[in-house]
């Protein structure tokens, strides 16, 4: 039986292909798979490129940190795995120049540093920045600008570090891994590792941090990381790409969500096109099925034949789609390569598997239900053509496709919340479009009365065509995606970019003494720059939660261990920062209780397992102080405002020794201001985070661009839905046009009627699509990406007009054959009984 099914399934596949019945399904599926694999390959590559750029912030793919010299065993393991290695040793030390002394952060680097990212230097203070391909030569050091201003030094002059006098060769403008510890108060002095021993500064008891930087293939890094996890000794720490700064993590997560969204919209559209095409295919195949039933074919044979045919077709389309997807992303990647600082790494082959699996799942979910019903075709249909194939009920189809869609979205984004949101948005959209289709039919019937022949023909086509509502839904869905991808996407991306608008703070001032607060404000005002808000800051170590003593060993999680091992920056405030949002409890301002309290950042609370009502105990300047957590709040880390993990209510920390901190924006040509500020307030530390911010901004820009390109495929999939919808009505249209022409209607009259039909359909679908896309965009922006979103009237204007134009053009193109087809041939093709 199986062999019979197999033979029959193959027999007419080529002929069916030529007659166009399977072509729409295959092309839709191929396009869906092309989109999915192209997105898959592309996101895979972009993801890898972004991970590599994130690696810049570590200066390697993996960093092992230890206060003691890195064990030979670790270095040996890295060598065995052929990982590239570099060493750094950092410690605070005082440098001398004449009578002046200054506390600096010394960093000795070995050849090859940095393994990821680049060092950037200038030949003079605030001069032109160039990329360095080497490390400081022996006998020379590179220093940060503020060391030169604070010690009134020039390039070429000498400074004493331990027992050695070094020549200052460069101004250090950018150091990739500097960002991973932004709050380093002392300026950097970088020297060649070969010079370190001679300085005599590092002795066995010295307080130093040693880093072993590693780089290599992803798989090898993973192997090393696994080995290291099992062999870590106390004091040793491993930093991976996920341990970068929270700003970076937010940017990367957002980029992944955007790309994930693009992928799942393509999947959804591919499915819609396939569903429309298969419904049509099943109806047309029902005649063949009935003849076969008549001649003795069993229902299982029909099931096998049609299912296998779908599998062959699907397999082929999926394979072709994968190849096309690969080619498409190759072209796009080469177009995009220049935008990436680093070479985009080649993709893995995994997206092919994902693409083919997705294609088959889409086929099973969207195409199989109508095909399954083919086995129930009544043999009596050979005698009574009016008998319709019982197709699955709309609701069961909706249920099946919704489940398939949700499953795919979950699988592709790895985010159930995002999948559910986009899924429910889509269902809502389909429901609205469905209702609107009925509304359209009613309106058209009303318009129909008393109108001319052309109007009647055009509008009657809408009102009487059985598939009109399906078509409107499909076109509306396609248009919604197109609008979402173009206008709404731009709005969302702009809202996203607005989170880092021009004027975002790019300078941090730390170490401001309480007595300097007022003079500093005056200094800003005297230079015509508005004085920024200054926040008090106290450094304290978390020593207990409730009755329990805590330390790094208390936690399993790496991040928790790291957070607890270092000092927290604590602050106090009466008012909450504007961009903070309370997620649990109340800000003290909103509560009548006068009890001392802490407001804790939600992410920190999750990491440390803290909840509302817990008591946190900190050791600050030798004294222990405690307070209960009275609120949890979210913080916009990517705002670059001064933010704190833990904020105390007024009255808790004021008696402790505090310094102040602030952030402000400085224009590109205001470098002089910094020099004057440093001279006026020598003890204040200036952190110029422009380089670091450019880094974050570049990543975001690249991500935006990637999303834009990825959406291009989704756009094509949307057009395919249109094509499938129009193609499904072709037979009906051929017959109608033939009847009209045989009755004497001119080609022009028929064309007018068709134009009117498609224009109404397109305009209505466009209006609904614009509304749906705007609502979905609003939902995505505000709920998912936490961005503010304003409705854009252009979405409706562009939506309605472009939809009417595209649908009319595509419609006329799709049905152009009906205009030129000899009526006798058409009428002969549809024998009636």
């Amino acid at each position: 039986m199986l062999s019979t099914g197999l033979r029959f399934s193959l027999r007419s596949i080529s002929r069916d292909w030529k007659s166009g019945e399977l072509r729409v399904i295959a092309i839709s599926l191929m396009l869906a798979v092309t989109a999915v694999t192209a997105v898959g390959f592309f996101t895979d590559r972009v993801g890898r490129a972004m991970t590599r750029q994130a690696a810049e912030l570590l200066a390697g793919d993996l960093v092992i940190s230890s206060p003691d010299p890195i064990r030979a065993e670790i270095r040996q393991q890295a060598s065995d795995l052929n990982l590239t290695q570099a060493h750094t040793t950092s410690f605070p030390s005082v440098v001398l120049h004449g009578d002046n002394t200054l506390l600096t952060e010394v960093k000795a680097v070995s050849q090859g540093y940095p393994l990821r990212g680049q060092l950037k230097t200038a030949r003079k203070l605030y001069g032109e920045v160039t990329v360095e391909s080497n490390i400081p030569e022996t006998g020379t050091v590179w220093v940060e600008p503020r060391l030169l201003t604070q010690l009134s030094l020039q390039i070429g002059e000498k400074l004493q570090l331990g027992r050695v006098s070094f020549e200052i060769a460069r101004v250090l403008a950018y150091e990739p891994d500097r960002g991973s510890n932004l709050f380093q108060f002392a300026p950097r002095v970088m020297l060649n590792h070969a010079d370190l021993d001679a300085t005599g500064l590092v002795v066995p008891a010295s307080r130093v941090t040693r880093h072993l930087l590693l780089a290599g293939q992803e798989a090898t890094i993973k192997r090393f990381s696994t080995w290291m996890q099992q062999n870590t000794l106390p004091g040793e720490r491993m930093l991976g790409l996920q341990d970068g700064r929270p700003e970076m993590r937010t940017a990367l997560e957002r980029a992944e969500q955007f790309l994930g969204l693009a992928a799942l919209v393509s999947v959804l559209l591919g499915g819609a096109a396939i569903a429309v095409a298969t419904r049509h295919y099943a109806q047309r195949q029902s005649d063949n099925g009935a003849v076969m039933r008549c001649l003795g074919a069993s229902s299982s044979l029909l099931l096998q034949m049609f299912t296998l045919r779908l599998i062959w077709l699907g397999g082929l389309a999926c394979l072709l789609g994968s190849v096309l997807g690969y080619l498409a992303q190759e072209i796009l990647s080469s177009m995009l390569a220049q935008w990436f600082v680093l070479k985009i790494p080649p993709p893995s082959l995994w997206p092919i598997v994902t693409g083919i699996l997705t294609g088959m799942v889409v086929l099973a979910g969207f195409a199989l239900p109508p095909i399954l019903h083919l086995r129930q075709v009544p043999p009596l249909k050979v005698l009574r053509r009016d008998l319709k194939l019982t197709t699955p009920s709309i609701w069961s189809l909706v249920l099946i496709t919704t489940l398939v869609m949700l499953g795919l979205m979950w699988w592709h984004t790895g985010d159930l919340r995002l999948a559910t949101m986009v899924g429910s948005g889509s269902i809502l959209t389909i429901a609205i479009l469905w209702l609107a289709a009925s509304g359209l039919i009613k309106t058209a019937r009303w318009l129909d009365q008393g109108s001319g022949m052309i109007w009647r023909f055009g509008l009657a086509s809408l009102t009487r065509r059985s598939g009109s509502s399906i078509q409107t839904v499909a076109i509306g869905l396609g248009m919604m995606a197109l609008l979402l991808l173009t206008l709404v996407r731009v709005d969302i991306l702009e809202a996203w970019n607005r989170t880092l608008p021009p004027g975002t703070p790019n300078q941090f001032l730390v170490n401001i003494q309480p007595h300097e607060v007022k003079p500093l404000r005056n200094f800003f005002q005297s230079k015509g720059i508005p004085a920024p808000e200054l926040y008090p800051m106290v450094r304290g170590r978390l020593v207990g939660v409730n009755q329990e003593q805590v330390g790094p060993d208390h936690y399993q999680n790496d991040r928790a261990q790291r957070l607890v091992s270092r000092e927290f920056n604590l602050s106090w405030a009466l008012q909450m920062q504007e961009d903070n949002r309370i997620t649990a409890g109340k800000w003290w301002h909103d509560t009548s209780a006068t009890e001392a309290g802490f407001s804790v950042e939600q992410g920190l609370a999750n990491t440390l397992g803290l909840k509302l009502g817990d008591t946190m105990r900190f050791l600050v300047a030798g004294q222990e102080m405690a307070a209960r957590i009275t609120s949890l709040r979210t913080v916009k880390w990517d705002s670059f405002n001064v933010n704190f993990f833990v904020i105390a209510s007024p009255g808790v920390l004021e008696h402790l020794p505090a310094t102040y901190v602030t952030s402000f924006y400085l224009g590109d040509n205001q470098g002089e201001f910094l020099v004057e500020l440093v001279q006026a307030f020598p003890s204040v530390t200036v952190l110029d985070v422009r380089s670091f911010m450019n880094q974050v901004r570049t990543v975001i820009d690249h991500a935006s661009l990637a999303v834009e390109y990825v959406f291009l495929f989704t756009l094509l999939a949307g057009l395919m839905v249109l094509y499938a919808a129009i193609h499904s009505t072709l037979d009906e249209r051929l017959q109608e046009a033939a009847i009209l022409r045989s009755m004497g209607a001119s080609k022009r009259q028929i064309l007018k009627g068709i134009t009117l039909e498609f224009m109404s359909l397109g305009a209505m679908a466009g209006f609904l699509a614009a509304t749906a896309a705007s609502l979905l965009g609003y939902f995505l922006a505000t709920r998912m990406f936490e961005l503010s979103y304003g409705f854009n009237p252009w979405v409706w204007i562009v939506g309605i007009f472009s939809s009417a134009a595209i649908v009319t053009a595509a419609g006329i193109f799709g049905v152009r054959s009906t205009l030129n087809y000899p009526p006798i041939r058409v009428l002969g093709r549809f024998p009636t009984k």
Partner: protein
Amino acid sequence: MPTTNNKPVITASHLHKEVTGPGGILTILRDVNLQVNAGSSTAILGASGSGKTTLLGLLAGLDTPTTGKIQLFDSDLSTLDEDGRAALRAGRVGFVFQSFQLLPGLTALENVMLGVELGGDITTSRVRALETLQQVGLGERIDHYPDQLSGGEQQRVAIARAFATHPEILFADEPTGNLDQDTGRQIIDLMFSLQEAHNTALVLVTHDVELAEHCGDRMLLDQGILEYHDA
């Protein structure tokens, strides 16, 4: 003349067929009784809408009566489900339809092979299909698709498909309805000569009295009642 014996191929007793339409219940067949013997030919005459196609569908097991019993070969059709009835037809029942009902995706040869293969003969299906196509005069057009053939040629392919399995009974529903007079005549000659050669029982449904005269028995279906018709 085919050899008729008294062995019945179909026996229909007290058939009633009612359908529910917009105007209520409509009776299409009333107490129809019929026997078709092996090798015989029976014409069922009737005007358009008289229910003759419904009767053909019931006799062939394509539909089920409201009441009454049909015995096809040795099986009571009411005891079989749709698949059981299909299995009973496979290879033993042939059809010729007014609208030919060829599968558009298959060539003439493949369309004929389809009937043989569904009858269970996989190994010699090609040879049998070729032979039959030659018998109907289409040996040169075996690789043509239905839309590349004229109406008469398509009906010849349908006849070849029906006879390639050497069926015990052939149901023909207005086989010349879509053909011009000359072609219709050729098709009828071909069909009857093959029916004779294969000793196949024939049930022919038509409104054409002249065509019905080719058959040994003629019956008239009028307002759902079947009676013998004497020209």
